């Protein structure tokens, strides 16, 4: 085979998956918690939709990547 052949590896080293999963899920859950605290404590008129959406978006990014890495580290290669 030609010299231009080079092996392909994953974009993130396999050994980082568990660590990434733990940290991203932790951050995601903290942001989720703050989201729900905000939902529960602020009264209906004082709530700002933009703040709710941004908190939700940030939480879902962290939870999304966190759960992906959790799947990968537990052997479910999606």
């Amino acid at each position: 085979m030609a010299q231009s052949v080079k092996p392909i590896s994953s974009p993130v080293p396999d050994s980082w998956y568990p660590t990434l999963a733990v940290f991203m899920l932790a951050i995601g859950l903290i942001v989720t918690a703050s989201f729900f605290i905000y939902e529960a404590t602020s009264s209906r008129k004082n709530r700002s939709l933009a703040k709710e959406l941004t908190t939700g978006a940030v939480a879902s990014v962290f939870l999304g990547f966190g759960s992906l890495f959790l799947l990968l580290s537990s052997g479910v290669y999606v």
Partner: protein
Amino acid sequence: MKRIRFDLSLLFVFGFCMSFSTVCSDLVISKLDRRIDLTSQLVRTTVSLKVENNGVDSVSEILLPFPEHQARNLAFLSAMISEGKDKTKSSSGSLPIEATNPKGKPPSLTWYSVSLPKELSKGGSLTLEVKAVFTHVLRPFPEKISQADVQLVAFQDSAHYLSPYTVKVQSLTIKLPEPRVESYTKLENTKFSGTEIKYGPYENLPPFSYTPIVVHYVGNKPFAVAQELVREIEISHWGNVQITENYNLVHAGAEITGEFSRLDYQARPHVRGASAFRNLVAKLPPRAHSIYYRDEIGNISTSNVWSDSAKTLLEIEPRYPMFGGWRTSFTIGYGLPLKDFVFQSEGKRFLNISFGCPMSDVVIENLIVKIVLPEGSKEISVSVPFPVKQSQETKFSHLDMVGRPVIVLEKKNVVPEHNQYIQVYYRFCNLSLLWEPLMLIFGFFLFFVACIVYMHADFTISKSSPSYVAKLQWDEVQTAIQQFQNIMNRCLVVHDKLEASLRELSRNGNVQACKAARKAADSLLKELSKELKPILSFLQSSPQAVQIMPKVEELVSKERELQEKLMLKHSTVVDSYEKKSGGRDIENRVAAVQQKITLLRQEVDEILEVIDEI
């Protein structure tokens, strides 16, 4: 004892062929050495032919005929030119072989033609090495044995090589697994020694010579046949190649009759169950991980793994010893690192993986290899070194939207010789990797949006009920209190800023900056008190705020007092600085006020906390 019947059709073929002997070309095989290896359930024949061209025309292909019963079971055929003497083989890759149907040749034979890389000119010679592997040619005889019997196997072939060319000198060697033979056909020049039977040399035989022989010998090697093997190879660009193999295994040797005694088998497995096999060894690639071995019931615990840098050995033991005619089905699976099997070349990616089954002594009747490429792969092409049936399907797996393209390769009669590397080429963009996390993110986001909608929506059916109205009012009060708290907190922040400006002043003595800070604070406080007014009046008018009102009013008054004291302190300090009084002097003057401020601040904080808890 029963006699083994010769296949009458073979004799017919033999006679039929003789009549065609005149049509052959000018090629002559000057020396032919044939070895048949019967040590496993497969028949492996290696024929080395020295071909000479005695004719005038150049020859570019050599014909290899096989009788019908062999051709049906021919699993693998390869031919190569071996140069040099004897063992020092320097072969130059296998030559292209294709099935032909030459005119004027007996049609009861199956013909293959080997294309030579360069034509054999007049008087030239070359040595060809032909390897052929047959499955299901060995017949257990008797077909049913008891547990204590050894397995006897009958093998039929011709003592003379079946060829359309004249063979000058030829010999045949049959290698047996054990030096025990029930019977064998004795011709002239037959020699039996150790585990080998030798026929020949025979000289100057005409084309299509055929002399049937039968060897009836002890063959206790396992006849492990996978009637169907489905190998699924799933590529994940997150770093894994997952292989799952579903076996449907049968012992295709002599069937067991009578009862099976586990006790006898445990006590003397090599005598009471000589033809049975207990385990199979799969040779997996190095760095295989997450290996499992299970069947429909669940995990099978009788397995072992050894690994080193060159391979991973997996020894699996079915739930029971496999006797003739017994079946089992199981699944093994393992993960392999992506970087060992998937490569990139000229913008295309390709998977380079071995085709057949990792177990060396298993024959597969029907092998289905499914290669599951990641979602979004395009321009898929496959390169396999032998003919296979190819099709394409789609598979839905974890987090898929449109499904993953699956290449399905099917081949019948697969032997270990087919364990060659195949390549699957495809195009894949790394950005497609992000689809899966994006879907997860989207899912979570939908959940949050649903929560937001739920919190904002009003699901009350009766909008006029007193409890609902009360709740609405309480909501408004709560809103007002939260706004009030917010304003108070902002006031306190302004206070902190003023204090900070004083500290700044004591450090650098910049009176102007301090005055500017004061001005800003003044205007801010004024605005805040303006904002406060409507909230306070609302709270006063609202009946539900009665309980909390005293605290609110107390807080307002305390805050106002605190504000006054702070202003007083501020103006005093600034004045003193303008008059250039000493540091101690200022401190003395402010001391009383300062005490008061600290006290008030504490009270304000406490009240804020109390309100917060309501």
